């Protein structure tokens, strides 16, 4: 449980952090460290150099305006869950409060979760449902990567080796009814199925449906088939079960020793339906 030897730099600015990443291709960004450090202690990860970005002031930004909510990459879950963002995007704070345990929430960061790209991360569903934009810096300047393009494979993002995530932007407004429902893995607490759901109901009609699922699938996914079945339909005429069934088909599922493909698909389906029922009943 001792990591292999590594160097450590606490960066004061984004430029300083990027310099290290450029100089050393085996360098890794360290934020809360709650995923990276356990892997290093097991020697499953052996970065040669850790660049601690948690003291870079720019990365702790938390801003709200009428058209965007900006969350710095090093904003900790606990800070976020107590922030005023709950007023405009309750989905985000609801999800954050269900992440792991208080110790992890006081260390773990939004950007760390995004960049680590665990396919069972709670925030993945939120990023996908809200069409979040990942703002990344590199020597070539700044670019924005849409959530739909961010998750490339389990634990792999669209981030290039010399790029660094600096903040996440959530376009506003989002649909008014929002929730995050989670069926947690009883051991790890990760989502076996986490559903981010949002919609509006205007004059009895369902509008702006957003559904995203994390944990159940090999990758987090948007359940667009469910969204299409529901959008623009009268609430009285829809069957959420049918929509959830369709939505579950948008994911790909794997089996492991304890949780079969069938079970995971079922969980995705059940949790989607329950999330929709909850929003409809609000």
């Amino acid at each position, binding site marked *: *449980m*001792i990591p292999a030897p590594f160097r450590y730099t606490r960066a004061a600015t984004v430029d300083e952090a990027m310099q290290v990443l450029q100089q050393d291709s085996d360098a890794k960004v360290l934020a809360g460290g709650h995923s990276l450090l356990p892997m290093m202690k097991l020697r499953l990860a052996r970065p040669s150099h850790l660049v601690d970005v948690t003291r870079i002031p720019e990365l702790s930004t938390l801003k709200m305006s009428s058209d965007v909510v900006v969350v710095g990459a090093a904003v900790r879950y606990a800070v976020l869950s107590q922030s005023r963002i709950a007023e405009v995007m309750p989905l985000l704070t609801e999800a954050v409060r269900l992440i792991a345990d208080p110790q992890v929430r006081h260390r773990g960061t939004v950007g760390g979760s995004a960049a680590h790209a665990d396919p069972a991360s709670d925030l993945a569903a939120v990023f996908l449902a809200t069409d979040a934009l990942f703002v990344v810096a590199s020597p070539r300047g700044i670019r924005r990567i849409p959530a739909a393009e961010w998750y490339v494979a389990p634990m792999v993002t669209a981030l290039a080796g010399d790029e660094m995530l600096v903040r996440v932007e959530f376009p506003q407004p989002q649909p008014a009814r929002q929730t995050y429902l989670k069926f947690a893995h009883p*051991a790890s607490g990760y989502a076996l199925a986490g559903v981010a759901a949002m919609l509006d109901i205007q004059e009895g009609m369902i509008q702006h449906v957003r559904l995203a699922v994390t944990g159940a699938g090999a990758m987090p996914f948007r359940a667009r088939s469910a969204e299409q079945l529901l959008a623009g339909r009268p609430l009285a005429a829809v069957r959420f079960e049918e929509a959830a069934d369709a939505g579950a088909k948008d994911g790909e599922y794997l089996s492991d*020793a304890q*949780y079969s493909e*069938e079970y995971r698909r079922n969980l995705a389906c*059940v949790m989607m339906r329950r999330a929709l029922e909850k929003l409809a009943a609000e």
Partner: protein
Amino acid sequence: MTQPVVGSRALRKEDVRLVSGRGQYTDDIQIPGMLFAVMLRSPHAHARIVHVDTSDALRMPGVVKIYTGQDLKAVLPPVPTAWIPPDSDLKMVEHPVLAYERVRYVGDGVAMVVADSREAAEDALEAIRVEYEPLPAVYDQRQAIGEDAPQLHEDAPNNVALHWTVGTETEDTFRTAEVVVRQSFRQQRLIPNPMEPRSAAAHYNPATGEMTVWVTSQNPHIHRVLMSGLLGIPEHKLRIVSTDVGGGFGSKIACYPDEVLVAVAARDLDRPVKWTESRSEHFLATTHGRDHVDEVELAGTKDGRVLAVRVKAYANMGAYLSTAGPGVPTILFGLIVNGAYDIPQASSDVYGIFTNTTPVDAYRGAGRPEATYLIERIMDSYAAAIGMDPVELRRKNLIRKDQFPYTNPFGLSYDSGDYHAALDRGLAMLDYEGIRREQAALRSQGKYIGVGFSTYVEMCGLGPSQVAGAVGFQGGLWESAMVRVHPGGKVTVFTGASPHGQGEETTFAQIVSGRLGIPLEDIEVVHGDTHRIAMGWGTYGSRTTAVGGGALALAAERVIAKAKAIAAHMLEIPDEAVQFDDGRFHPEGRDDRTVTFAEVALQAYLAWNLPSGVEPGLEASAFYDPTNFTYPFGTHIAVVSVDTETGEVRLLRYIAVDDCGPAINPMIVEGQIHGGIVQGVGQALYEGALYDEDAQLVTGSFLDYTMPKARFFPEIELDHTVTPSPHNPLGVKGVGETGTIASTPAVVNAVMDALAPLGIGDLSMPLTPPKVWAAIQAAKNLKGGQAS
């Protein structure tokens, strides 16, 4: 007189130290010049070791020495087992401290690196090159005794470690019985996870030849016996210290190779050496628990009278015999499979089997949870088979109050009890009829709740030494205590039991305080150090208060007897005229002239004016050997709901009515019951080791192995009855394991009760959401198929 201290909810004295970070656990030991050891463990479940190359590793910075199995096999005897059940044909296979020709499970020790720092040692570990030739491996015990199974030990053909049978004739009864119920139960393998992992530190003084080993042990004196033999250091030169130990649950009974190796290195290198396992290492290299397949048969009448029960058990021993391993599926299991019921005939037929897995040893309850599970589960199946309410069936077969002492079919003499009273109390707390009405109403809405019972008894308070000998335990099971009164009247108590979280620094002080009439804070309880305590047998098998407390009560009485003689002399009255109460001696019936306990203590040490023939000083020892085991019992009731869409089981209510005799400290008793229940529910719903085809542990961390968590539980509802045991001076029965023993079948019975309308008869533990969901799906498909 103030509130009696025995029976009070005194706060735990040890907690001041333990919760403020002032405890001294083994890993806290720091000695100048100390080296650190780490173990290289086999990544293969079964392989031939072709070559171990340590040359690169030896050149790494900070590395002092590397030991391999080849280095040690000639100088160190193998690790012994200490429980040899008679007539079991036990195969005492060699368990080397480090594997030298073959590794037999993932985690088997291959080499030990000793270095200046833990960091240096772990870096060097990666530089050791081991060439393995992988062999076929087997993790399932029934496969291991099958044809063409990989063979683990030359001395154990077909991997059979032991075969043991016990009990009465049952054949005629089974042939003629009106009803025979057969069921096979899987006791999944559990991984004990005390908060503190295992650790050992050793310091050797070549000038005196004295070796001190700090080790996470539940029984330091047993460690001393075993390590003395292994190391060739006589007991008077070998000190084992296990004062603060952060939980064990049975996993710290065994003498492991690791602590022996640390001592070997300390002597060899003339430097203190410490080793502490990581949690990942703990999952692999610390003993596991349970892992049976039990084929059970019950014979009974159509109107619900059980006539006979018999079991054929296949117990997984792991790759080697752990210290107490062979006793667990035999003596601690096979003798009590009739449970709390008056069953005339019973027999047990037990196979212990070697597999390529971590060795199996005691785990909280050790054998008795397995026995209780099978009888409590098959009682429900029997009830279903004859259409009888499971409570009525139990009421009809429970041993009656007027039958005690009750001799079970295996010859055990159950001490005392009123099993029906505990059941009635539990039912009253539950509102049984109300819950059945609610269940029916919910079922009509497609919602499923269930209620499950466990009317258990267990045997603990291990135990009379004569019995220990008769059942092949290689030690006595009496316990020692010494009460030393200091000249100022304060007291130090020395106990041979070795509490490691159970709170006896407090309960033992309460016992002494109650007898000597001095405040709790004037009493210090010392345990877990073989140089301070002459001899003892440690803490396991819910024995500490029943046996260690019994010894303590006797020692305290001896102190009082001597103090009375001194007080009589001081009061100038005959011995028999002295009355002692509330810490004061006075003439019987009068309290105008008194001497206090402290005054007598001082006089005992000054010795200016002692009665003739009385020696100076005031201390007494007792070596107490109980006359029998103790038999705590009770009724546990679980109410669960099953979410049929996700398969998730939720515990809605949990009721426990336990009888452990008189409680010395009800708060500590309740804490033991809470913890026990949580661990038992862990087995029912959450925990279970899984191996893959190559016998690799799949559930090797808390990410995959589900420990029960506080949020999974409702407020546990407790009550008790009090039936003293006639088998020890305090009348106490032991409570450390009852919760674990009782709760597992109560919860599984409740889940099966909930699922009964769906036609689901049995599921194997743990009842995880995917398993329950899959069973519901299969049942639905079957019903659908029948309908179409």
